[in-house]
C-alpha cells in the first residue's frame, strides 16, 4: 500500500516526459511507416529505403559518426589525463579547477564569436573538435577528479607494498575505483557530442561545409521542407542506434564491475 503512494511521485515526471518526448517520438514512428502527409497507408520499410539511398543522408550520418567516434574518446582521454595530473600535483588549487569548469557554464555564442573573430580560416571539422574539447572537457575533469580524490590512500600504499609501479597502480587501483564515474562521464560525453550542432549552426549556419554536414543539419533542412516521412524514418534509425549504444554500454559496465568486485 505504502509503495503505491510512493510511485505517485514519479507521475509528474512521467506525464511530462510522455507528453514532450515520447509522444513526439511516436509521431515520428507513425510517419516512418506511412506513405505521405496526406495518406496514412502503411508502406513497410519503403521510407527507410528511400532514406538510405539519399546521398546527403549518408554523408550526414557518416559525418556524425566520424565526429562522435573521434570526439568522445579524445575528450575522455584528455579529461582523464588532466584529472590525474591535477589529483597528483595540484589537488588543492581551486583556481585551476575553476578554470577548467568555467567553459561549461559559458554560452556557446561567446566562444563562437571569438572563433569567428580569430580563427575564421580554421578547418571546420577540426574547429568543431577543438570547440567540443574546450567546452565539455571541464565537466568531465571535475567529475573524474572528484572520484580520484575519494580513493582511499591505503589502497595505493598496499599496492606499493606489493611492488606495483605507477602504471600498474593506475590499472589495478585507480581505474576500478573510478569506473562508475567514468561510465557516467562517458554517457554525458556522448550526449554532448550530439549537441555539437549548436556550435556548428552558430558558426556555419544551415548549410555548412560538406565535412561538417551532420544529421542534425539534414533533419533541420528537411523540417524546413516539411518532409515528414524522411524525418520520421531518420528519427527511428537514430533512436535504434542510440538504443544499441546504451545497451552495449550497460552490458559492458555490468561485466566490468562484476569482474572487479
Amino acid at each position, binding site marked *: 500500500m505504502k509503495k503505491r503512494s510512493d510511485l505517485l511521485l514519479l507521475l509528474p*515526471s512521467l506525464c511530462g516526459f510522455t507528453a514532450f518526448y515520447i509522444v513526439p517520438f511516436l509521431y515520428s514512428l507513425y510517419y516512418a511507416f506511412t506513405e505521405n502527409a496526406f495518406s496514412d497507408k502503411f508502406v513497410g520499410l519503403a521510407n527507410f529505403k528511400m532514406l538510405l539511398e539519399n546521398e546527403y543522408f549518408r554523408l550526414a550520418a557518416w559525418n556524425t559518426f566520424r565526429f562522435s567516434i573521434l570526439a568522445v574518446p579524445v575528450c575522455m582521454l584528455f579529461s582523464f589525463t588532466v584529472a590525474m595530473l591535477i589529483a597528483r600535483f595540484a589537488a588543492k588549487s581551486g583556481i585551476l579547477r575553476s578554470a577548467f569548469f568555467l567553459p561549461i557554464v559559458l554560452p556557446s555564442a561567446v566562444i563562437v564569436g571569438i572563433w569567428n573573430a580569430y580563427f575564421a580560416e580554421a578547418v571546420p571539422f577540426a574547429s568543431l573538435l577543438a570547440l567540443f574539447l574546450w567546452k565539455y572537457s571541464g565537466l568531465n575533469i571535475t567529475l573524474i577528479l*572528484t572520484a580520484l580524490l575519494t580513493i582511499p590512500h591505503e589502497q595505493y600504499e598496499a599496492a606499493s607494498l606489493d611492488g606495483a609501479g605507477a602504471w600498474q597502480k593506475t590499472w589495478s587501483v585507480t581505474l576500478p575505483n573510478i569506473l562508475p564515474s567514468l561510465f557516467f562521464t562517458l554517457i554525458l560525453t556522448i550526449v554532448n557530442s550530439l549537441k555539437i550542432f549548436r556550435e556548428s549552426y552558430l558558426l556555419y549556419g544551415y548549410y555548412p561545409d560538406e565535412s561538417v554536414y551532420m544529421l542534425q543539419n539534414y533533419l533541420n533542412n528537411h523540417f524546413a521542407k516539411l518532409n515528414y516521412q524522411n524525418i520520421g524514418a531518420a528519427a527511428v534509425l537514430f533512436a535504434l542506434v542510440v538504443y544499441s549504444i546504451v545497451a552495449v554500454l550497460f552490458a559492458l559496465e555490468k561485466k566490468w564491475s562484476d569482474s572487479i568486485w
Partner: protein
Amino acid sequence: MVKLRRILVVLILSALAVIMVMPIVLTVTRSFAPGLVGYTDFFLWKPYYLRLFCNSLLIASVGAVGNVIVSVLAAYVFAKVKFRGSGVLFFVYIVVMMMPFQVTLLPQYIVSRDWGIYDTPAALILPGIFSAFGTFILTQILKTMPDDIIEAAKLETGSTLRLLWYVVLPNLRGGIVCLLVLQFTELWNMVAEPLVLMETELKMPLAAMLNGDAPVVLAATVVFLFLPFLLYLLFSDTLREEVGSMVVK
C-alpha cells in the same frame, strides 16, 4: 627531481587553464573596444536586447527550478522504490535523453501547436522542466545513498514527503546545485529550439539572437555570459567539492 617535475606539470596545467579562460577574457575586452557605446545601447537606447535577456531569464530559471523539483521526485522512485518495469523505464529515459533535439524536431513542433503553446515561453519551458537529464543525474547520485538510512528514516518520519524533505534533500544538496547550474545553462544556451518553437522575435531568448559584431551585440554577449558565471561563483565550492563525490560508488 620530483620537485622539478611537479613545477613542470603545474606549468602545463596552468597553460591549459589559461586557454580555457582566454575566450572569456577576449569577449570582455572586445566589448569595450568601442568604449561604452555597446553598454549604453544595451541598457538604455536599444531595449530590444534587454527584452530578450528577460525572456531568457524567465525561461531558464522557471525551467531549471521546475526540472529540479520534478527530477528529485522521479529520481527517488527510480533509485529507492522497487517496482516492476523500473529498469526498462529508466532505460527509456536514458535513450531519450541521448537523442538530440533535431531528431524529434518536427513532431515537437506539431505537439506544441496542438497544445497551443507554440510561440509562447511555455513551448521552451515545459520540455525543459521534463527533460530526462535531471532524473538521470539525480538517480545515479541517489543510488549511492545507503538503503538503511532511508529505511531507518522511513520508520521515524512515517510519510515519504517528510522523508524526502528531511533526509533525502539535505544529502542531495550537491547534486541539486549541480543540476540547477547545468540545466539553467542548458536552457540559457538554447539556440535550435527557439528557432523552431517560436516565431515572434521579441519572445525569443537572447542566445538565439546573438549574431553579428555590432557593439550592442558584443555588450549583450558579456551581460549574457555574466549570469551563468555568477551562478557558478555562487555555488563553486559545492560544485567542485560535492558534485563528483556523489557519483562515486
